[in-house]
């Protein structure tokens, strides 16, 4: 796979700004001001809520979780927030595959309450017909009821952003306008196992901000450059990100598409997706240090070491419940305990 820019538009070595291809416009981006050195020593806070239901007080939960995670609501006033749920390949037969609309609506209400301008956006990785994804997931009805704007990230005009992660050979990424112009990208994943990388949560969910019109359906350009590497690089190259994980009805076994439902009743929130994903792994009784993209992220994008993560809300230990994973050699090292069932 070529390491040349994935377009004839030359990359720019700009660190905080993005150039809209063909428009000549420059949009101000907000990038975290922390240096890599600071990240390496950074602690992070993760909030875990238990006994959550889709018909429950999710707005309160999410608001509490964001504040407990150290997010200052005042910093979001007037900002553009992109809510990015997981709608990779929705099916009415498998609602546990995709982010529940109730989570999206609740998150939108919270961020709107903070004074932010909210858009829901997704670039489904396996379906070109985004309307189908919206219909099958139930998200369209939610958008209509709340008059929430939707950005089809697969087809928008794109902006070139330098790869700040440098784990893969990709020089940069084409981000769709909705992601490039966002001040904050909120990853709203479903808590699932993944048959290639072990786990998919806040960080892997951000594959969905990569436009299919440039990278394919599936987004093979990313796969061919290494899934863990490109997960890491995308997260490193986006503006500020927050994670709100739908861990109420989860997926175990053959995730991220064909797995079975596992009820956990959790919502997990944090301002550092790496730390959130590490906690998600522990809740699944999986070792985050064995998840390849977390191996890359640990100490670089955020902490994955439990000792560096401040737990708010509930402690993860009593809530951990082993998730079934495929009985494949590349996944066995994820299991923290011997003798636990694998499919």
């Amino acid at each position, binding site marked *: 796979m070529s390491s040349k820019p994935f377009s004839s538009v030359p990359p720019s070595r700009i660190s905080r700004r993005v150039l809209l291809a063909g428009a000549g416009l420059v949009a101000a981006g907000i990038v975290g001001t922390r240096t890599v050195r600071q990240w390496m020593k950074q602690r992070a806070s993760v909030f875990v809520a238990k006994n959550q239901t889709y018909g429950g007080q999710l707005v309160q939960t999410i608001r509490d979780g964001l504040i407990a995670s150290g997010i200052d609501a005042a910093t979001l006033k007037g900002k553009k927030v992109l809510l990015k749920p997981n709608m990779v390949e929705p*099916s009415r037969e498998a609602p546990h595959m995709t982010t529940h609309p109730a989570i999206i609506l609740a998150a939108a209400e919270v961020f709107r309450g903070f004074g932010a301008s909210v858009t829901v956006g997704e670039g489904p990785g396996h*379906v*070109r017909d985004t309307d189908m994804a919206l219909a099958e997931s139930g998200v369209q009805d939610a958008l209509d009821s709340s008059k929430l704007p939707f950005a089809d990230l697969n087809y928008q*005009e794109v902006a070139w952003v330098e790869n700040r992660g440098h784990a893969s050979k990709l020089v940069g990424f084409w981000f769709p306008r909705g992601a490039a112009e966002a001040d904050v990208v909120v990853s709203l994943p479903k808590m699932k196992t993944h048959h290639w990388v072990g786990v998919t949560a806040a960080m892997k969910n951000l594959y969905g901000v990569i436009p*299919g019109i440039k990278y394919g359906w*599936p987004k093979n350009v990313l796969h061919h450059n290494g899934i863990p590497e490109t997960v890491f690089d995308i997260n490193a190259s986006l503006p500020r990100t927050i994670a709100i994980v739908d861990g109420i009805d989860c997926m175990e076994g053959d995730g991220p598409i064909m797995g079975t439902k596992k009820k956990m009743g959790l919502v997990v929130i944090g301002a550092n997706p790496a730390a959130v994903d590490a906690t998600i792994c522990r809740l699944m009784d999986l070792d985050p240090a064995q998840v390849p993209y977390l191996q890359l992220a640990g100490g670089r994008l955020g902490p994955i070491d439990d000792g560096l993560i401040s737990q708010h809300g509930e402690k993860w230990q009593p809530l951990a419940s082993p998730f079934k994973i495929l009985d494949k050699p590349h996944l066995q090292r994820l299991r923290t305990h011997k003798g636990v069932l694998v499919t």
Partner: protein
Amino acid sequence: MGWLENILDTLSTKPVIGYAPDAAPATEPTALAALALIAHDRQPKAKPATDSLTSIQSPDGSVGVRQKELEPQWPTSLAVLAWQAYDKQAYATNIDRAVSWILEVKGKAMEQTSDMGHNTTLVGWSWADGTHSWIEPTAFHVLALKVTGRSEHPRTREAITLLLDRQLPSGGCNYGNTSVLGQMLRPHVQPTGIALLALAKEQDQGNRIAKSVAWLRKALSKETTPASLAWGALGLAAHGVTLPDAPEWLETAAKRVQSHDNSPHKLALLALAAAGPRPLTPDP
């Protein structure tokens, strides 16, 4: 059909379109707009669209996704279909250059492993350079080769084999996987419709085409989302299947688009579906 005439009138005044009303023009929607106008006997109105596609064509013959985005080049096939349908003589040079590029590029074959259910060694076309072959780009390029008289070209024949291989055992296909790590995946309407367009008039010893046609007939309904409905209807029509409610469904879908995102791409696609697959398939 008032809804159809309204769409065609709009496309007639502005056939160079994007995926959204305020979006930059893009190759796929513009090609589909041209095809829809041609299919509904408004050929002269398609010329700005077909001309605009020539301005996106690169020296190597490929056509990128948008005016200033020369990569990836998967819509090259759609540009060929539009040029061929409009006037193959007038665009002969563009077509020849594009076909030369199409015949040269290949989806990346991969070593066969037990993890993947489909034959990963077959070569079709990919979405982006250096990546694997998938259903829709392969099907679109097959259509382009067929309409330009290359149905028997070895690349076309191998691609047909690939498309058949990617059909699920119970019918239909998705983006192009069958089973992964031992688990059979689900079919989707849009890629099934597009694949069936490319598989029109093909022989199939394994009965896979018939199964996919049967699956698609059951899958289409008034609830089917617009793009999937359009491609599904086109795919069935290519195999002689016309659903009696299809015209009503297409109209309902068009109204849904107009009330939601008013996407010119989807409206062009629905208009094309209303005409049938003629401009997408070789002359009989």
